[in-house]
């Protein structure tokens, strides 16, 4: 039987396709905003404020007369940046912790697990509020706060996957070859849990976007004059009854953003996880 690449197999999965399309669109908008936006986002044009959808401003203008589409693109970029870096913080610290816990067992594992439990004991949004109030509200602090909550998530996934691999015979063979636990973790364990981690990363990315929006909404995340999806929502709140489109546009962007990444993650998990494929319950594509 010909071995298809994982990506090709994933493309047959409808939710993966939909998720990939949506995520790619958002990432593309974010990338374009780095070099070009339809209108500058830092020029106030009061006479033209609350403009409706028109040929010049495709999504209208906000309460300062700034172009909504341009703001949305910049907002997506900054939300994505915060979420990506938060995932990076979580993965870079959490994955080594999880691999170490699985490799060494004993007291080190106990310490890492208790540390995980400690972080999990605080709801993510509460710990983020504590951090941002201690160190001042800013996009960077929001990023760190979300990132810290990501650490135990990645540590758990990495440890869980690694534990089952450590009982396999090829790991025994590697031990007989004199490889240290760290070498085995890098050479045999890490590549084999990578698929689990990629799936987790896409899901944490969508959660990160949501968390960033929440923090910005209560004024603890991105600060003006920068913008983000949560900040746009907050600014639109005061005019909601007069100009509902002001809130609906960033709100819908958040919803679609999160759904896209979740679909992408689900599709990836279905294709990458051999346990699900064996159970036969996955092949939605038929």
């Amino acid at each position, binding site marked *: 039987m010909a071995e298809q690449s994982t990506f090709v197999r994933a493309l047959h999965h409808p939710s993966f396709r939909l998720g990939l399309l949506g995520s790619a669109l958002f990432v593309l908008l974010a990338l374009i905003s780095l070099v070009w936006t339809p209108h500058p986002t830092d020029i106030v044009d009061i006479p033209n404020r609350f403009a409706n959808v028109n040929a010049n401003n495709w999504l209208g203008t906000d309460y300062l007369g700034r172009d909504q589409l341009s703001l949305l693109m910049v907002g997506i970029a900054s939300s994505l940046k915060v979420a990506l870096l938060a995932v990076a913080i979580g993965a870079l610290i959490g994955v080594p912790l999880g691999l170490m816990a699985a490799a060494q067992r004993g007291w080190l594992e106990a310490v890492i697990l208790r540390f995980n439990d400690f972080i999990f004991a605080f709801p993510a949004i509460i710990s983020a509020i504590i951090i941002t109030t201690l160190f001042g509200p800013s996009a960077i602090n929001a990023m760190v706060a979300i990132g810290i909550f990501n650490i135990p998530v990645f540590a758990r996934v990495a440890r869980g996957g690694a534990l089952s691999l450590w009982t396999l015979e090829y790991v025994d063979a590697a031990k007989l070859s004199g490889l240290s636990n760290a070498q085995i973790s890098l050479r045999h364990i890490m590549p*084999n849990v990578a698929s689990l981690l990629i799936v987790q990363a896409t899901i944490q990315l969508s959660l990160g976007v949501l968390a960033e929006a929440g923090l910005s909404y209560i004024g603890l995340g991105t600060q003006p004059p920068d913008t983000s999806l949560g900040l746009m929502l907050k600014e639109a709140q005061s005019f909601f009854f007069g100009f509902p489109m002001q809130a609906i546009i960033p709100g819908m962007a958040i919803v679609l953003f999160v759904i896209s990444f979740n679909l992408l993650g689900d599709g990836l998990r279905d294709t990458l996880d051999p346990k699900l494929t064996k159970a036969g319950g996955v092949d939605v594509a038929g």
Partner: protein
Amino acid sequence: MSLVEVKDLSIGFGDHTVVHQMSLSITPGQRVGVVGESGSGKSLTALSIIDLLPESANTTGEIIRNVPAGESLRGKHIGMVFQEPMTALNPLMRVGDQIREALELHLPDIDFTARVSELIAEVDLPASVAKRYPHELSGGQRQRIGLAIALAGEPELLIADEPTSALDMITQAQIVALIKRVCDTHNMALLFISHDLGAVAALCEHVHVLEKGKCVESGSIETVLKAPQEAYTQRLIAAARPTRRRLKTREIGAPLLELDGISKRFKLPGPFWAQKAYVQALNDISLTIRESECVGLVGPSGCGKTTLSRIIAGLQTAQRGTIAFDQHTYGRKLGEMPHAARRELSMVFQDPFGSFDPRLNMAQSLYEPLYLMPELGHAERQERVHMALERVGLTPDMLGRHPHAFSGGQRQRLAIARALVLRPKLVVLDEPVSALDVSIRGDVLELLADLRENFGIAYLFVSHDLDVVRAVADRVLVMDKGEIVEQGDVDTVFDAPKARITQQLLGARLGV
């Protein structure tokens, strides 16, 4: 008149045919065996008779079942016993109730409680098990309950699909004897599916041999065993009677490995305030393996032979005792196994599919042991790996491929090649042929014998299969409950066993 008549049955999935033109018939009271390797289509044939094929299967041919119209086929006329007794029973239901459930379906007018006790007594279990849950029973007891459920509907035909493969040797022999007795008392026909020719020979009068979905030979068990016509059947029989191989040109040398007083116990999990409970895995084990010697290690499951072999290989450490191996001495208080000792020792594992990292190609896996020899240059490394491959009959052009591209037999050859890269003095073989299909076992055993002859490697051969051990080993150690209860020359021990467990193990052999 036959109970079931299968004529020219073919089963396929999509455009891939799995069973070709299979024909068999079972008369009342007849015991029929179907023998074949994994993937030969034997289970599908059985499922088609009891009408349990997956919906995606397309079949041609005819199955005539001698069942009155309108009566349910399964349970009442055909009973079935499955391979994995744990998953065949409902974990949340007492086993007595599970037997009762089958009775309520098929014989609604009787006294269920009395009949359940009768059935439990019939499969040689004490009456108290009726109140137990499946996880409280051993594998053999669960399989007996499975049999009691199958008997509840008083079927005329019992289909048993590998009912003993998940059990250890001694339990296997008991279950085989039980099935035979039950079939005799009820005059029940049996369709017995197995990869194990020995079990089929012990039970059946008539046998069908399947190879790749085709029935290559069928006939009465005596004729097929005595005068097999087809090459494939001959290979199966030869594999069940492994050829005896002894050193020809080489002499067994000086002691290579000496274990003195090795003990190991495991702490059982429990709350920290409770009295610590331990299980003594190994108790004061002493043994010697000489250069070029092949020592067999046998014992019932759970006797500690895996722990012992892992300690010898250096994968676990003992809590007491010392090990002297090739001028190195190590153990408790003497320190860890030195790197220099690791170079002289390697291991071949049971499962050829689990012993290679699926993400690495064969070159990466085969060069791995050379981590122990950092002083070697690139050319020397390559020479060692290529030489090892050559010795197991494979070629270096396979090195770029990943494990999934190889068959089970090829993988086991590659695992042996990986063990040879270090040019070790001792190789620990942990059930090296049990996971292989019988037809390729002979090849692997021959390869191991050749390597010993040519390079003087000593083996510790761990196996549950006494026939294989007798064929390859010079000396045998019998373990039971963490102790070596008997040891000596393989013929002396097997011809005149002294320890009770050795006698039991030998009595449980299902030879052909």
